[in-house]
């Protein structure tokens, strides 16, 4: 279990890097990190349940302009990590649903509070930029590369640290709750999961349709055709 926790925390750092500072290849998306964590913990079902909900909610959270978006990179890792660590201790079906609910909560809270940390990091980078320009003008061309490396190291360290703290808090505070109240939490999951999925899909739909009637018609037609095919295929 210790190695699995270590891998989870390191993945938090990698996700924090991918989110903004390095490459942005979407390795930080909750579905991707949840899939990786599912492999590490050997618990596909719980990992994918949490990953799908967080992914669908994160899909419309965009880093456009200078806006500071919620930190779904670390949030996705923490959410899935809390769910997996809790489910590993309570291997019965109802507790796993309770763990999924608590995992999504942990992920959403981590993403929300992560905004302050991202803002702090960006302010640090302002100082780094000013220092770098002065150093270059003074003759040190290597300062640009040094500042870039410092930015990457800072982002990774903040990601790992924040992930470790949130994971520890999540497992420590929410874990015992899952053990004591698994029935109630599992019931809440059966209600919250479809609500979350509907809410997230609506955001995606709005992003694609953008008040165009033809696109709304395409959505409706695709829904109808897919429904008919699924139901007919099921019979």
């Amino acid at each position, binding site marked *: 279990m210790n190695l699995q926790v270590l891998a989870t925390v390191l993945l938090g750092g990698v996700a924090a890097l991918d989110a903004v500072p*390095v490459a942005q290849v979407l390795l930080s998306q909750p*579905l991707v990190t949840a899939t990786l964590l599912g492999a590490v913990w050997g618990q596909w079902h719980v990992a994918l349940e949490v990953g799908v909900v967080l992914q669908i*909610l994160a899909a419309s959270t965009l880093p456009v302009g200078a806006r500071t978006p919620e930190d779904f990179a670390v949030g996705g890792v923490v959410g899935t990590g809390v769910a997996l660590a809790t489910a590993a201790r309570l291997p019965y079906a109802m507790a796993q649903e309770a763990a999924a609910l608590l995992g999504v*909560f942990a992920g959403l809270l981590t993403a929300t509070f992560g905004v302050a940390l991202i803002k702090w990091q960006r302010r640090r980078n302002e100082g780094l*930029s000013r220092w770098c320009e002065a150093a270059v003008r003074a003759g040190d061309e290597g300062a*640009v590369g040094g500042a*870039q490396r410092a*930015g990457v190291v800072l982002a990774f360290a903040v990601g790992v640290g924040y992930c470790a703290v949130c994971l520890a808090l999540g497992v420590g505070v929410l874990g015992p709750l899952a053990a004591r109240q698994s029935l109630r939490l599992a019931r809440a999951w059966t209600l919250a999961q479809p609500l*979350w999925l509907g809410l997230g899909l609506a955001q995606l739909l709005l992003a694609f349709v953008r008040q165009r009637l033809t*696109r709304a018609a395409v959505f409706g037609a695709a829904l109808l055709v897919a429904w008919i095919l699924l139901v007919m295929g099921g019979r």
Partner: protein
Amino acid sequence: MGRLVGADLRRMAGRTLLLQATFNYERQQGLGWAWALQPALERLYPDPDERRARLAEHTAYFNTQPTLASLALGAVAALEEQRAAGEGPDSVALARIKSVLGSSLAALGDRLFWFTLRPFAACLGVLIALGGSWWGAVALLVCYNLLHLGVRLLGVGWGYRAGTAVLGEPQRRRFERLTERIAVLGAALVGVTTAYLLAPEGTPRVLVFQAAFAAGLGLGLVGGLRPRPSPTEWALGIGVLCVVATWFR
């Protein structure tokens, strides 16, 4: 004074991956931009004082959509090449060109990559993952990165060859057509995902699931038209309500 060669453009393309390593509110991508352009400046300005002055100039404010930044980087490298030969724009004109390129590319890139391709890739991944398969994550990564990494790595060469014409009418129209097509496909994909959620494997879900899903969808459509509360705040509120509702049942 030299001319840029393929190796310089490849080094610049590799460095675009760290364009936002020191992203901040004051200069945004400025420092990452300077670092990505550094190989070109090293080639074009053998005089260290002149090179340092140019490098320091490029650490100033710059911001655009990070994938399409490669195009701007290539175009500006071409301008720097002219400038080093004594023909190109001066510092003020170059800063103005950078600013125009940045905002024009951001307008195109935000719509294509952030508002359309990323949600599309996410929706595709979710649809596959709903069947319990880890291929969903792979589909998400491949779908997004075919275009993202392709443009990011090849865009510098493209921008260098096209110069400031990189954002001419034909290219702009091509990007807009692509965005339009992905958005239409995305609307269809959300329809298929909705159908799958309501009747996975062809068996309709229980009424509670369908009602709750419809309620979430309706809430998202109405709430999504307002900036506040954000979708994440909605999700937290809904989660708390569900726990409270089941706790006292």
